[in-house]
């Protein structure tokens, strides 16, 4: 199988050699909005290895711990004004954090824009 841009992660049983678990992990690009770049090495995008949206976001804050408090509450929940999009879809309308990633997917973190007098 010729797999480009992703690696196959697997767990083999030491004695039987049986495949216990396998998952495709993709390299996912995460777009960082301008106000958060200062906490992400001033980069407009960060690439992480992940199989799901949840893993991608975890990978992001592991790489750049200063981002955590801007994305998550003290209880570990994504802040209400932080929108996470997979390509052009809000992950809340997909499988949320469990949404699987495939090659060439792009995640965008988009703080909300609203107001009025």
């Amino acid at each position: 199988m010729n797999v480009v841009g992703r690696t196959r992660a697997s767990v083999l049983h030491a004695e039987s050699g049986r495949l216990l678990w396998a998952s495709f992990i993709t390299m996912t690009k995460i777009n960082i909005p301008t106000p958060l770049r200062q906490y992400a090495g001033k980069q407009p995008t960060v690439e992480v290895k992940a199989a799901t949206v949840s893993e991608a976001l975890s990978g992001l804050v592991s790489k750049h711990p200063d981002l955590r408090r801007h994305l998550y509450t003290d209880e570990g929940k994504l802040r209400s004004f932080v929108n996470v999009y997979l390509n052009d879809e809000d992950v809340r309308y997909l499988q949320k954090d469990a949404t699987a990633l495939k090659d060439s997917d792009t995640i965008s973190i988009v703080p909300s824009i609203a107001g009025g007098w």
Partner: protein
Amino acid sequence: MLKIGQSNYDSLRQHGEETYPHECCGVLLGQMGGELRTVSSVVRCGNTRTDSPHNRYDIDPRELVRIQRQGRERGEDIVGFYHSHPDHPARWSPTDLAEAHWFGCSYVITSVEKGKAAVTNSFELTGSDEADKKLLDEEVEVI
């Protein structure tokens, strides 16, 4: 400080007149350079707050994702946003502050009085997090 060309400046003010008595809203694309934000294009957005459009605005995040992507393809970043205050001063409100999350960006507000754009002011969202954020007056240079 916010630097913006005359045509872009006129465009965002005119947008407020066109949507009057409802609030207009949009995105400022350009370059961030320390304390200076230079606008190279203005993108009009729809106001999704159809329940109270005369005093509230909200930009669909999906539209923001698209604008951000198209901007990046041209080497532009989101440097700010604009909206109008129909028959209300061009000052930020408690709602504007509560809903502002793009630190280091400009929030431009135009008062529209009886359908005519009046005063346009800009405010920079400063602070390190939600607890200490502030909207501070900033100079607008129209070039």
